[in-house]
């Protein structure tokens, strides 16, 4: 059965793969949107943060001997920064925070020192490493530029990207790596990816759903729901929204703007690492990772620079456009032309993106 001249099952395959791939795009877009919401900066370093985050994940996941010790020290550093520097939980006393650090450090250290559950260790280790990455970027590169022209900060994100690339090159080199996160172990002790779901005899053929992409999509959706709830119902989330809306006003009502910005970068770091690890589990961990973020820029613009829901919709639309474009027009047009044509059309109709806020400035 054909749909507009193409086999129906191939079109359905393209649609499903587009949706699932779009989930990863949406997660990448979310990281960019959060920084933009918190600081108004378009973060060109996001792709490089993804690369570093994925390499941190790989390091913990591949049973590297040194990693737990390093991670143990890093976890202490992170907790200290959060508790003393950022002062969250804000309402706690100094004694309470010290006790919290000690207990949390112990728990995290225990997780990182075990080698039986590499996935859990990698998740915890990466969350810490990626959050630290975001905090360090914010403290060393972004905070000094507060009150400088926005363009300077945007340029700084480009510089940060190059620095991160250099760090990854010096530390890990450039070898492509496999990251079989969603896999069991076969008789030889090799990772065996979960088999794909096959739906036979549908629209004249077999449609295949990649399990790792399906899991990645589920995680991406869960992350979205989590962040929507976070921004709507938590004090920190509300503080971030207020800061993004008007920094001066937020500061005037007692919000600690710098701390909010730091937390936003930490969250963006975690999101970058999560998206990168999910992408790498579907393909491989390659030095080309930063270019993936460039492909997601249309999704960010399409959804609206400040909209979390827009990031999700934008990611899905671009994913679907790519894959259906490939089915109908070949991959050169599908992957490199169609997403931008879709973006162009939507921006002409809605210049602020599908869900972007239309700002009216009095002159």
């Amino acid at each position, binding site marked *: 059965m054909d749909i507009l001249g193409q086999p129906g099952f191939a079109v359905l395959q393209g649609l499903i793969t587009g949706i699932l791939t779009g989930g990863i795009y949406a997660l990448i877009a979310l990281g960019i949107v959060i920084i933009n919401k918190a600081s108004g900066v378009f973060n060109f370093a996001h792709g490089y943060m993804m690369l570093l985050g994925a390499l941190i994940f790989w390091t913990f996941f591949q049973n590297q001997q040194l990693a737990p010790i390093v991670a143990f020290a890093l976890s202490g550093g992170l907790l200290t920064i959060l508790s003393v520097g950022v002062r969250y939980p804000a309402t706690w006393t100094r004694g309470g925070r010290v006790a919290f650090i000690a207990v949390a450090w112990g728990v995290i250290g225990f997780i990182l020192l075990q080698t039986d559950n590499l996935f859990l260790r990698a998740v915890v280790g990466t969350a810490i490493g990626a959050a630290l990455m975001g905090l360090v970027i914010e403290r060393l590169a972004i905070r000094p530029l507060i009150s400088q022209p926005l363009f300077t900060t945007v340029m700084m994100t480009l510089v940060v990207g190059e620095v991160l690339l250099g760090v990854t090159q010096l530390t890990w080199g450039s070898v492509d790596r496999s990251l079989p996160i969603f896999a069991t172990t076969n008789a030889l002790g*090799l990772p065996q990816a979960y088999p794909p779901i096959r739906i036979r005899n549908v629209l004249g053929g077999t449609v295949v759903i990649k399990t790792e992409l399906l899991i990645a999509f589920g995680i991406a959706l869960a992350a979205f729901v989590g962040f929507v709830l976070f921004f709507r119902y938590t004090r920190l989330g509300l503080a971030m929204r207020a800061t993004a809306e008007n920094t001066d006003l937020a500061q005037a009502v007692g919000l600690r703007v710098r701390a909010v910005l730091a937390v936003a970068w930490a969250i963006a770091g975690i999101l970058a690492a999560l998206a990168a690890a999910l992408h790498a589990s579907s393909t491989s961990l390659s030095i080309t990772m930063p270019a993936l973020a460039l492909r997601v820029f249309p999704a960010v613009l399409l959804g609206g620079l400040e909209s979390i829901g827009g990031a999700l919709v934008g990611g899905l639309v671009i994913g679907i456009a790519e894959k259906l474009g490939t089915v109908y027009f070949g991959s050169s047009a599908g992957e490199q032309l169609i997403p931008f044509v879709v973006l162009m059309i939507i921006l002409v109709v809605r210049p602020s993106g599908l869900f972007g806020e239309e700002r009216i400035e009095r002159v």
Partner: protein
Amino acid sequence: MVSKRFFVFLLVMALALVAFNAAPSALAQGGMMGRTECKEDLTGKTITLHTFGDLSGPFAPITQPLAAGFADALKYYNEQGGLCGATITLQQDDTAGRQEQTQSLYQRYRAFDPKPLMLLLYSSADAELLREQVAEDQIPVFLFAGSTIGLYGENADKPGWIFAGIPLYTDQFGAFCRWLGKAWTTELGREGTPKVGHLSWEGAFGRSTETPETTAYCAAQGVEVVGGEYFLPTATDVTAQINNLVNKGANVLFTTSLASGTALIARDLVTLGLEDEVLLSGVNWALDTSVGLLGQATLKPSGLPSTDNIYGILPYLWWDEPTEGTKLVQEQFAANQRPLTARGISYLAGFGAVDTYIELITRTVNRVGFENLSGAEVKKTFEEFQYESLGGVFKYNFSPTVRAQDQVRIARLTYARGADGNPIVVEVGGRKLLVPVVLPVTPEFETVPDLKPGGADVVK
């Protein structure tokens, strides 16, 4: 009487010959196989090998082992006496895969005084960008990439200043079709006729094999080319591209992409359940160790990695073939504690490139003298360069009209097996791995067809 004198004469000559060969020659080059002896002692001098390319961009997975091969070879050959006694140093820079950076670096290199005697470049795109400029500046280039435009120009009628250590990608594909047409029903035991779809990275490198000349040549060999699909190195999935080609009838996919690209295709073939139906093949890079390692993330129902049994082009000897040259490379690889991930084409090519450089410069010095060394003279040497680098690991046969190596075998990527027939599992960094190996399918080297536009084997 005459016969006695003749016998004494022969004896004296034989003793002289033995004495000559046994005496240590001040100009002999140590540790080097089949190397030309130096006529000039360059002790105390320094010769710089200039190279730049993508060390941190999309090509980094193959160029970093290449750079490691350069470094280890330079160390080894300098320890063995260098280039006729001269110390060889390395000037190396990174373009990060950006054409503007390639151009910028070239501007810097061309301004060196004296100009580089030769450049080692890495990619087809760089070759195409710099082709006219290196000709203008009279700087010959050696690289391991087979772009027709880079080597012969837009109309393929002007052999330039760039020489390739591997065959043109068009010619590699032609050689593959020639073998495929014969082997399809016999060796491969398949039915019907072979129909090839190109599935490669977007760009000059990836698109190099799909040309009217290769399509016509393959048709003449009984192989139909059904079309091409091209994907970005960042692609998450190529199932749509595979479906497109299979729907056009493809039962063979031919790829011109590097490690992650080839591994992604292999993975998605298994995902679609097409691993037995569709044969995966590619240019020489498809058989690299990097592909064999990445492919282990997805196993076929047989339990072997998705990248098992990829067919491709092998224009050199492989690591495990027992020769003096491969033994030397293996020894140096181990001595420098290089990781398994570097045990691929690039390291071998890097080592061979330094060996080739030494031979080229030695021959040029012998011909014109050290004081008269120049890029133009090195190019003249290149144009009559018949040489077996590393004792035959790489074989070069350049001439005033030939700019690329032209001898290949067909080979397949598979995994090492023990005496019991089971795959050998090794543990690297706490992770279990199978060991990728490349096995020649055709035992003898054959000359590739000449399929550049206007080439000798182009079907009229």
